[in-house]
């Protein structure tokens, strides 16, 4: 899937393209880039026949500079006028970006020369406030426009060397960003595109000795306290916990005997992470690449969604060579830098987190449990005892973020990868000719919540434009049970046939198998029975 990325800037942004292209390549994103003529952001976004509209981007990056907001020759003694001009420009930007698909804005740094133009400290404080109001207004846009995103670029630039603007380039070619600023932006934009493409990492596999804690637990004991270097390792644990709370699965890969590590996790007062924070613990003496491969299989998550962080060069090289898909974070040097090393490349950045993310670790652990309990009985017997309940209902506004997230995260059970943007998904929920269904699943191990969605176009023939199901739940009959709900609704609506789109990718074989097993376009008379006997279907029709 090629991601179409457009750049629309208030200044000459040609220099952003080369670093953006290479940052995207590094992130493993195949992208097609388009640069709009500079200084025409609003026109490009709104005119139906603009180059931008014809390009039909998946993502539009809008690049802004201070000169786009400050009137030329602004009067430092009339900051009220400046404020008016700034407010007017934001209003025009807001009108232009609303409802244009995925648009990415950013907070804008104020160049030093502009700041120094005001000589009084009181006046500078006023200008500073005005400027922060501008950036705050930008940061508030996503609250009103669900497909607009804002990068807090001004905050990130604090860590960059050198000035934001090279005045030679600004005066000669209206280039408002120095090469370093362009690179910093390209890095952030590429990470965003990776999230849009659904390529965010889902699992952090982390080493124990000299990584999560100081020292070797089996030998001299561990250092985890408020003093350096123990506190650096404690901080890494805190960051990992923060990731876990936002839906990242943590796994421990440690060469130790299991009892020693179990005791540490249960008893050491300095540990931030405890056994339930890990979806899995591979504490053994086997090569780590084997552990990773097995873990990927058990969790049903692709290895390209794995990040592996280890202080040992040996382990890292082993994993890098055996499993090139895995992103390896080298925890070299001072442990005080470990937290930053894990987070710096933004592997885990996602568009949004939802309520499900908080309990994702528990859900996956329950799933592994099922895996194991399945081993003890015949599959049929096991499935009957599972108490599987599938609830299919029309998606509410509340479900939309989760469904969009699922359609981005899912690689295996998805009929058409990247079929619908958030705005398009919203249309399915609202249009009378379309239908957006949310699938919830529970069984005796627990409630999985919303695990899938179905995008349908109604008519004489109903067409499933997309069907997405989390890899946690397919291959238990959930997919056929949910399809039964679509069949029932189509029959009630008087449709005679059910069809379904399908586009093959490298990874969606499970969806291909499902598509084939059903045999679309399926005649709806006589009414097809698709639901397996062990599943219970609950259908909820919200507005009949």
């Amino acid at each position, binding site marked *: 899937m090629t991601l179409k990325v457009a750049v629309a800037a208030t200044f000459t942004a*040609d*220099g952003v393209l*080369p670093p953006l292209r290479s940052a995207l390549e590094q992130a493993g994103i195949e992208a097609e880039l388009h640069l709009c003529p500079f200084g025409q952001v609003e026109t490009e976004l709104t005119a139906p026949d603009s180059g931008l509209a014809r390009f039909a981007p998946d993502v539009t990056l809008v690049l802004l500079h201070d000169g786009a907001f400050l009137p030329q020759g602004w009067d430092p003694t009339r900051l009220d006028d400046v404020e008016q001009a700034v407010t007017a420009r934001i209003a025009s930007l807001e009108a232009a970006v609303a409802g244009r698909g995925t648009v990415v804005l950013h907070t804008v740094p104020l160049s030093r020369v502009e700041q120094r133009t005001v000589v009084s400290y009181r006046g500078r404080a006023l200008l500073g406030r005005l400027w922060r109001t501008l950036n705050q207004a930008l940061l508030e846009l996503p609250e009103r426009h669900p497909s607009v995103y804002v990068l807090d670029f001004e905050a990130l630039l604090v860590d960059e060397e050198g000035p934001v603007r090279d005045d*030679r*380039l600004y005066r*000669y*070619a209206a*280039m408002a960003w120095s*090469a370093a600023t362009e690179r910093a932006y390209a890095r952030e934009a590429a990470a965003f595109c990776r999230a849009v493409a659904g390529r965010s990492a889902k699992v952090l596999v982390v080493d124990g000795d000299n990584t999560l804690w100081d020292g070797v637990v089996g030998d001299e004991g561990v250092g985890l306290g408020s003093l350096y270097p123990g506190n650096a390792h404690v901080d890494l644990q805190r960051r990992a916990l923060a990731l876990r709370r936002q839906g990242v699965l943590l796994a421990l890969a440690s060469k130790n005997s299991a009892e020693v590590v179990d005791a540490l996790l249960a008893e050491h007062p300095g540990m931030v992470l405890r056994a339930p924070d890990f979806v899995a613990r591979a504490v053994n003496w086997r090569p780590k690449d084997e552990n990773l491969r097995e873990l990927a299989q058990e969790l049903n998550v692709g290895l390209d969604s794995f990040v592996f962080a280890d202080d040992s060069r040996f382990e890292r090289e082993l994993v890098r060579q055996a499993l090139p898909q895995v992103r390896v974070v080298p925890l070299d040097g001072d442990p005080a830098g470990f937290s930053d090393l894990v987070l710096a490349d933004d592997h885990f950045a996602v568009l949004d987190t939802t309520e499900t993310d908080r309990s994702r670790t528990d859900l996956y652990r329950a799933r592994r449990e099922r895996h194991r309990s399945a081993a003890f009985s015949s599959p049929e017997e096991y499935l009957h005892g599972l108490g599987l309940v599938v609830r299919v209902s029309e998606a509410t506004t509340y479900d939309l973020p989760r469904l969009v997230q699922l359609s981005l995260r899912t690689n295996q059970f998805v009929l058409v990868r990247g079929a619908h943007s958030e705005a398009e998904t919203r249309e399915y929920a609202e249009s009378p000719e379309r239908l957006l269904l949310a699938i919830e699943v529970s069984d005796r191990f627990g409630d999985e919540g919303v695990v899938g969605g179905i995008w349908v176009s109604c008519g004489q023939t109903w067409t499933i434009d997309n069907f997405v199901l989390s890899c946690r739940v397919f291959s238990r009959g959930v997919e056929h049970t949910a399809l039964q709900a679509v069949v029932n609704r189509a029959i009630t609506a008087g449709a005679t046939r059910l069809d379904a789109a399908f586009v093959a990718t490298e990874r969606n074989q499970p969806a291909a198998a499902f598509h084939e097993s059903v045999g679309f376009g399926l005649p709806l008379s006589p009414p097809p029975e698709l639901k397996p006997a062990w599943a219970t279907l609950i259908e909820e029709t919200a507005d009949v």
Partner: protein
Amino acid sequence: MSDVLTDLVPLVAEVSRTSEVTGESRFEQLAEWSSMAALRLLAQVEPRWNVRLDLRRYLATETVAELAGVIAELRSSSR
């Protein structure tokens, strides 16, 4: 050929997307040359040799060898 020129030639070739670049090459005659290409080259040259060029002088250089000379001169004066 001076050290600077040896390293500058491939940079110019990359930026202008032509392989036939020598010290005698005139910028304005390179196939893909433009003011944007000139600025792309500047962005590579400055950190590579740790120099800062006066844009007027930079834009006035006509050949690759002449630019190499300007860079070498700036480097020696900064030492």
